[in-house]
């Protein structure tokens, strides 16, 4: 398939959804009081962008998402790989990780709000807590799964057991860690919006909530679309990073 027809196949479902949306509302299959026309959302998107309201909210949200997620990745990878290499750490953390993993972090909002007070730190903590466990688990499994022949080869060639971590375990586990992070990245945007809707000053989540509460549905959907685009762009950037870092990978 050539590039042009691939692009048609790739984007026509998206176009179809937009057209169906617009038609459904215009033909009154769906009442405009529930769902504004796509064109109205597009106009709202334009107005909110020009007035700089939307860019400001994006900035606030991205700040929270970036710090929370970066901390989750840094600490999560360190803990996960550490657990895979250090038996005592595994013993100590495994029950905590297994127990905490299914807890819906959003349900902890009132408690966290009490402890941390309202502010960016609250959103950052929720994003951090909600994404660190999958990162720990992926990193643990990735580091645990490293082919021991690679480690033996390195030991044979004079790498010290301590250095094996940096020279072999991390690069060998990197593909699995990065694909795990890619899935968690989407989750971080969900948590970003959810935590902002529970109580925040500014941010896309707070904006979407107040637009909805005030009956400004075109603005609310503009906010939702913005989150979708933010997630999409972040995913593309991460994919680009994967392709750069893993040029050596077999099936990339």
């Amino acid at each position, binding site marked *: 398939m050539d590039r042009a027809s691939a692009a048609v196949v790739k984007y026509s479902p998206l176009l179809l959804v937009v057209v169906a949306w617009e038609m459904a509302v215009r033909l009154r299959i769906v009442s405009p009081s529930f769902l504004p026309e796509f064109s109205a959302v597009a106009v709202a998107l334009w107005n909110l962008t020009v007035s700089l309201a939307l860019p400001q909210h994006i900035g606030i949200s991205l700040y929270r998402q970036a710090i929370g997620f970066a901390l989750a990745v840094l600490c999560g990878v360190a803990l996960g790989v550490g657990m895979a290499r250090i038996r005592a750490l595994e013993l100590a953390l495994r029950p905590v990780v297994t127990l905490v993993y299914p807890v819906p972090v959003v349900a902890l909002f009132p408690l966290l709000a009490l402890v941390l007070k309202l502010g960016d730190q609250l959103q950052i903590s929720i994003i951090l807590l909600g994404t660190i466990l999958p990162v720990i688990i992926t990193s643990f499994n990735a580091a645990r799964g490293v082919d021991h022949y690679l480690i033996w080869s390195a030991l044979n060639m004079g790498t010290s057991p301590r250095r094996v971590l940096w020279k072999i375990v991390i690069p060998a586990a990197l593909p699995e860690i990065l694909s795990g992070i890619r899935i968690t990245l989407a989750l971080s945007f969900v948590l970003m919006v959810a935590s902002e809707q529970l109580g925040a000053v500014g941010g896309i989540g707070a904006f979407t909530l107040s637009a909805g509460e005030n009956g400004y549905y075109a603005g609310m959907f503009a906010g939702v679309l913005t989150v979708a685009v933010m997630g999409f762009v972040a995913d593309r950037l991460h994919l680009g990073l994967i392709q750069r870092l893993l040029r*050596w990978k077999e099936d990339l």
Partner: protein
Amino acid sequence: MLRETGLTKIRASGVTKRFAIEPKGEVLAVAGVDFEVRENEFLAIVGPSGCGKSTFLYMVGGFLDVSEGEILVNGKPVRGPGPDRGIVFQHFALFPWLTAKRNILYGLEERQTPPAERERIAEELIQLMGLSGFEHAYPKQLSGGMKQRVAIARTLAFDPEVLLMDEPFGALDAQTRAMMQAELLRIWNQRKKTVLFVTHDVHEAVCLAERVVIMTARPGRIKAAVDTSDVHAWDGTAFRESRELVQKVNQIWDLLREEVAAAQRVVEAGKLRDG
């Protein structure tokens, strides 16, 4: 073609290996192996699959501890991996994130060999192993034969006295395998090395080695050793089938047959038990 093979390079005495299996049990993999490998000798170990021949090799390499007994290399007990023993694995174990050349340079970099010296050694090995033009290829871009060439070059780079080879050509097709066997003999003739070569291929063992040690089914013990130094299968350009070669292969097969049958029975029993 006997060389100066007076000195003992590797001495194994009473080497036993037990593996713990969860929850409470153990498996005896190797049971009291005694033998010696002389300096610059090419020794092959054959045995049925699962007999512990690779386990034994990993203990010589220092990757696994012995449960009982002792392995001496140059008269010193083995305590972990060391640069005096280089290993080549069946599935190459190349670092996939490094190019062919960087794989070859790895050991030299880890040992902090001066850059100019590193470069010289790597270039020499790239020539020797016929890897020119593939220096900057990642392992994923190489065929099985080329990967094994890189793996051998990577091990030769730090110039170990002992070469431990764990079914190194087992993953290659027949033609590539014959090529690689010839390459290995050429290298062994060029650079003095003691070679401990594990294989389940009797023909390969007789073609390459000066002496073939036969191991029993698990738990692995030494059943017999057969001198194959008079076979001369390699005539400098090709491996030739000769009467001596066929005789030795038959002799080793006669020793091996009941062990292979015993190993098969263990496998079948396991299948029955595990359902």
